[in-house]
């Protein structure tokens, strides 16, 4: 009996030793040299594998960083400038500082503002709906409300608001990876420069129809009246195809355009309430309403 155990032990040990030897030889012979810095850089990357940098995953991005002569257009929006500086110090290169951005949904056509004309009952996908027809409302440019951006987000930073039927971005969670921008078939979502206290001013509309057509489809559509363009002291606003656009680089967040907009298409978010005496009563309530809108919508309506 003990002999069987002994033989088994010897044979198995011999097989094990032989296999280990073969593995060692092969490993030495076919060794692929990998820059150890790739591992180091990968370590400091956020490991989200979101694709926001344009590469398939964090490791691919780390490889690209190690290979690159200078960082140039290489940037990890999730890790941000801190992460890029760390990577630069490991690799002894210069990090290019990029201003942080955040996703902004440029449509305010909630169900009370943009009447629904028909009912879509196809597959729950914005791309499919947009390939089928212009959507449930009279506006062919606006949000289709089927939540493809929500599905695309890996950071849980964008949610559908059941009361407005529109997606809302959670600024603190948004990493500006651009997945939602890519997913939206109507190009509603834009990455805009992050300002102090998450303050934002933007035209919350992408309707390129003539004023009358746009207004008929949606109460809060941009009608291309150019009033905001005229009042802007910084030349930040351009109007093209009956649609205003505020350049985040030039905008100084003075809020003059917000009061001027006849359809309230320009949104101001995270600003303190305006002083009553400076602005006419009507517009002040208007601004207040907007402020409320950003945190919690005041309309308690059925979901749509």
């Amino acid at each position: 009996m003990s002999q069987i155990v002994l033989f088994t032990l010897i044979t198995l040990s011999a097989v094990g030793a032989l296999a280990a030897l073969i593995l060692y030889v092969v490993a030495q012979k076919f060794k692929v040299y990998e820059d150890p810095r790739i591992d180091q850089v990968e370590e400091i990357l956020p490991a989200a594998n979101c694709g926001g940098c344009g590469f398939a995953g964090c490791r691919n991005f780390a490889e690209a960083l190690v290979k690159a002569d200078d960082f140039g257009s290489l940037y990890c929006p999730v890790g941000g400038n801190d992460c890029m500086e760390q990577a630069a110090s490991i690799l002894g290169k210069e990090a290019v500082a990029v201003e942080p951005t955040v996703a902004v949904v440029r449509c305010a056509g909630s169900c009370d503002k943009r009447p629904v004309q028909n009912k879509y009952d196809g597959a729950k996908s914005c791309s499919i709906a947009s390939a089928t027809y212009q959507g449930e409302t009279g506006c062919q440019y606006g949000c289709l409300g089927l939540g493809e951006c929500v599905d695309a987000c890996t950071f849980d930073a964008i949610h559908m608001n059941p009361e407005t039927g529109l997606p809302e971005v959670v600024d603190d969670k948004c990493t500006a990876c651009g997945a939602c921008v890519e997913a939206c078939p109507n190009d509603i979502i834009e990455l805009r420069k992050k300002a102090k206290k998450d303050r934002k001013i933007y035209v919350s509309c992408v309707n390129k129809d003539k004023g009358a057509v746009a207004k008929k489809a949606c109460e809060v559509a941009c009608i291309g009246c150019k009033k905001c363009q005229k009042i802007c002291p910084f030349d930040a606003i351009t109007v093209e195809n009956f649609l205003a656009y505020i350049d985040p680089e030039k905008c100084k967040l003075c809020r003059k355009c917000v009061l001027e907009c006849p359809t309230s298409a320009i949104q101001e978010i995270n600003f303190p309430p305006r002083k009553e005496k400076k602005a006419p009563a009507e517009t002040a309530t208007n601004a207040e309403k907007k402020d409320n809108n950003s945190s919690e919508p005041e309309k308690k309506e059925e979901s749509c």
Partner: protein
Amino acid sequence: MLKTFAKGGVHPAENKLSAKSAIEVLPLPKKVVIPIAQHIGAPAKPLVKKGDEVKVGQVIAESGGFVSANIHSSVSGKVTKVDNVIDSSGYPRMSVLIDVDGDEWLETIDRSDNLVTDISMSAEDIVKRVMESGIVGLGGATFPSHVKLSVPKGKTVEVLVLNGVECEPYLTSDDRLMLEKAEEMIVGVRILMKALNVSRAIIGIENNKPESIKSVTKVASRYTGIEVAPLKVKYPQGGEKQLLKAAIKREVPSGALPLDVGAVVHNVGTAFAVYEAVQKNKPLFERVVTVTGKKLSKPSNFMVRVGTPVNQLIDAAGGLPENTGKVINGGPMMGKALNSLDVAVTKGTSGLVIMDDTESVRRAESNCIKCAKCVDVCPMGLEPHLLSKLAKKQIHDKLETERVMDCMECGSCSFECPASIPLLDYIRLGKNRVGQIMRARK
């Protein structure tokens, strides 16, 4: 045993409610909206502007390329606007709006009813006339007909196949046309044969249209080379490739055209339009449209001027029933629900199917149980469950190798799926994206 295609197919309830209603001429509308893109290919270029007076049959938009078609005015009157209006695509598109005033036709059009059987034109002139008359495939795909008649060098056509299958449930426009205008249609077939220089034509008709088969066979027997092939009822036999397999037992390989197997397919409605264009000099500005539905009081077939708003057809067929869920442009299998009843009839409108809200809703989607029914019914031999998943996950290279571009969007898979998965919706999306990628590669 009747002939049919081999692979897949389904047999939905036929519901040919309007089969007994003779074609009625719909009264002239007060206003028409004529989209400039009613065909596959480049949109036409508008030739008229606001305030212009037009006559019936006048060209109002000229062809925008080889694969494109002229658009003619279907009424006489004054152009009120050239603007974007929602059409059957569901999006606003450039259209010519005309206020109708009288019914003044161009003098060149022969409006008499007498049958002209002698074909005096040469093959080249026929193709030219078809092109000038803006004729497109009237089965629904609206592919410009002159392109199919212009055979490229090195290819030969042996047989012309006429599509009188009308495999879509509910629709009866081709059926009525074959029954009432068999004489004219057969002359049209002979014109097409002359243009293609073929001596043999086969008219495929499904067996659920016995009257049509009888009437067409009677007329066709007077001429040599024209045969009628009664086919077993099976959807989607009206698909070009399925019809060729059923009627002449030739299989078109993946990515190839019927021309590659020596055949050209035209719809019977197109043959009738070709007759009118060549013998009567009448361009394509009216067509037969079936208006049908289970709740509709008077399911009918109308001869309608292009540009007539859809609600006028529905009114003529007894008005929109209560609890209407969807109005489908085309048949229930491949048609698309309209998002407005102001949409105008175009060259591709073969029918309007009105579904009530209990029938029209989609059943709730559940999980795939891998029953492979979609694989069984796919007439192109694809795996719809796989394609839809790949499209959902955006794996486009795999989609291409799985031959997503072969899908002809017949909807048999979605029809058959016991889990009510919107298979075709996703496949169509994948097809769009793969198509874009392939075009970008060229």
